[in-house]
């Protein structure tokens, strides 16, 4: 069975500092990995995805993610956090059969001024 795990329920960062939100995956075959962000009372917004190719994927709002096959990780990063980045972040893997997304538990990012 495929799965993703987000080991941290909450990440706290000071504005201007780099941020990392962790995600590890367990899949059979090649992983297709996604990051989404959810602002309060809003839907999920797509940030970026890894399909194949470069291990460093750049996405929306200055976010990037690093795919590491040996560590089965796909951590989300941003060099300089903004207060407006405070939200819930979800890592997901696309299911081999049927195309549904399998989500991690979510990580609440809090960026303080």
């Amino acid at each position, binding site marked *: 069975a495929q799965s993703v795990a987000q080991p941290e329920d909450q990440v706290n960062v000071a504005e201007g500092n780099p941020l990392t939100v962790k995600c590890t995956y367990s899949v059979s075959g090649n992983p297709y990995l996604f990051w989404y962000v959810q602002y309060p009372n*809003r839907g999920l917004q797509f940030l970026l*995805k890894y399909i194949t190719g470069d291990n460093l994927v750049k996405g929306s709002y200055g976010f990037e993610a690093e795919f590491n096959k040996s560590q089965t990780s796909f951590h989300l990063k941003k060099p300089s956090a903004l207060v407006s980045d405070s939200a819930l972040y979800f890592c997901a893997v696309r299911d081999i059969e049927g195309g549904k997304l399998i989500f991690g538990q979510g990580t609440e990012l809090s960026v303080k001024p």
Partner: protein
Amino acid sequence: GEEVAQTPKHLVRGEGQKAKLYCAPIKGHSYVFWYQQVLKNEFKFLISFQNENVFDETGMPKERFSAKCLPNSPCSLEIQATKLEDSAVYFCASSLGQGRQETQYFGPGTRLLVL
């Protein structure tokens, strides 16, 4: 349209009542997915469609939940005889294709509260 649209935004039902939720996918997208978000974080897949055909229904509690995507109409998710545990936010997503590289774009969700 350019975004996935979901109606209504909020829905309150007494236990045992019916609830019907609607989703209009992005124009040109052939695949529609329904997810249920409970307890703020946990996402559960319910069902997906390829145009008007059910593609994957492995997540559907079939005894009370049903869904349709008919031509020229919004897709719908219906819950007969709602229960307290159906209280959740229901998200619809659409994608151009079914390939694993395809991005799913989500609507704003419908918040269902069952009293």
